[in-house]
C-alpha cells in the first residue's frame, strides 16, 4: 500500500471523473484500478468492497468509500476546498449540486438511443446556456473575484471548470455569451495543479467513445 488513494472504476470518465478532477486540483496523487470484466465487478461485490454494490469506489485513509458525493465531500473537507464556514459551504454545495445536474446530462448522453441523441444534445446546450452558465457568470460579475466563493479556490471552482470543458467538447462556442466565464476558464486552466491535469499523460480520461459504452454495458450487465 503506497498510502495514496486508490480509485476503482472503468477506464473512462463516468462518475469517477469529477473525483479525479478534485484530487488532481488538490494536488493529490492517486492510483487507479480499472474494471474491464463483469467477473471483476462481481468479485468486488462478493468480497464486500462495495457498500451498495456500486462503483465509484475510493480507498482512502483506511476507508472503502462509495457514493460520489460522499467521496467528494470528504476530499473537499480534507483539502480545505469546502469554504471557511457553514454559509460558504452552503453556497459551494448549491453551486456544486446545480453543476452536477448539468454533468448528469453529459454523463447519460453516450447512452442515449440514436434517435434521441440530437434532442439530448440540444437539451445540454439549452440548459448550459439558459440555466447554469448565467448563474455563474452573474456570481463572478457581482463580486469581481477570481473564485466563486469566499475569494478562495474551492470545490465549486473545480466542478465549474470541469463542466465548462465538458460542455465545450460538445458545444464549442457555448461560452460566447459569457465573458466572465471565459476569463474564469483561462485562470483555472493556468492554476498549476489543474494545468498539470490538463496535460497529456495525466489521469484525466478522454471523452466516452463506443468502446467505453460497450464496456459499461458489459461490466454492469445483470
Amino acid at each position, binding site marked *: 500500500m503506497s498510502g495514496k488513494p486508490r480509485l476503482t472504476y472503468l477506464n473512462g470518465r463516468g462518475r469517477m471523473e469529477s473525483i479525479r478532477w478534485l484530487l488532481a486540483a488538490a494536488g493529490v496523487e492517486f492510483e487507479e484500478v480499472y474494471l474491464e470484466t463483469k467477473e471483476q465487478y462481481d468479485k468486488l461485490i462478493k468480497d464486500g468492497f462495495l457498500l451498495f454494490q456500486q462503483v465509484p469506489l475510493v480507498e482512502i485513509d483506511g476507508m472503502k468509500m*462509495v457514493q460520489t458525493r460522499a467521496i467528494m465531500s470528504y476530499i473537499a473537507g480534507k483539502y480545505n476546498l469546502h469554504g471557511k464556514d*457553514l454559509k460558504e*459551504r452552503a453556497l459551494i454545495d448549491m453551486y456544486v449540486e446545480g453543476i452536477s445536474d448539468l454533468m448528469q446530462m453529459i454523463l447519460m448522453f453516450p447512452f442515449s438511443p440514436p434517435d434521441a441523441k440530437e434532442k439530448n444534445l440540444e437539451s445540454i446546450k439549452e440548459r448550459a446556456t439558459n440555466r447554469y452558465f448565467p448563474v455563474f457568470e452573474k456570481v463572478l460579475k457581482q463580486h469581481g473575484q477570481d473564485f466563486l466563493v469566499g475569494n478562495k479556490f474551492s470545490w465549486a471552482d473545480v466542478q465549474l471548470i470541469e463542466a465548462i470543458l465538458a460542455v465545450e467538447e460538445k458545444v464549442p462556442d457555448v461560452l460566447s455569451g459569457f465573458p466572465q466565464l471565459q476569463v474564469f476558464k483561462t485562470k483555472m486552466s493556468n492554476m498549476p495543479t489543474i494545468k498539470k491535469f490538463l496535460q497529456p499523460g495525466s489521469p484525466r480520461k478522454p471523452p466516452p467513445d463506443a468502446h467505453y459504452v460497450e464496456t459499461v454495458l458489459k461490466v454492469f450487465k445483470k
Partner: protein
Amino acid sequence: DGSLLFQQVPMVEIDGMKLVQTRAICNYISTKYNLYGKDLKERTLIDMYVEGMFDLNELLMTYGYQPADKKEQHFANMMEKTENRYFPVFEKVLKDHGKDFLVGNQLSRADVQLLEIILMIEEWKPDMFAKFPLLQRFRARMSNIPTIKKFLQPGSQRKPPSDEDVVDKVMKIFY
C-alpha cells in the same frame, strides 16, 4: 423574481439565504442542528448512508409519475432494491455495532432519513420487515423520539403519500 437560483424548487429561506438544491439544504440544516456527526469521518459515514438512501428515495419518489405500462416493473425494481441492496446494509450496520443510532451513537440525519424510507416502504409492503428485525426495532425507537413522534401525529406538517391529484399538479406546474 429571481428567487430560484436554478429555476427549481425546493427552495428554503433560512438565515437570510434562499437555499436551493435538496442536498445543499439538508447539509446546512444537519450541520446547524448537530445532526451530521462529530468529525469528518463520522460525517463521511453519514454521507455514504444518506447518498444510498437518496438513490432509493429517487425510485420511490418517481413511482407515481411512471406511465401505466411501466408502473409494475418500476414497483418491482424499487422493492427488489430495497430488499436486496439497501435494507440489508442498514440491518447489518445496526447489528454490527449494536447501538441505537446508525453513526456515532447519536441521532443524525442518517437515522431521520432511514426512518422516512422505512415508513414509506411500510405503506407499500409491510411484510418486507419480517426479514429485518433490527430495522423494526429501529423504527419503533425512532418513532418515539419526542420531535419525531410529534411529526408523525395528525395535524403535523408531514405530507401524505402523493396521490393522483399531486401528480397532476406537478405535471401542470413544471411541464
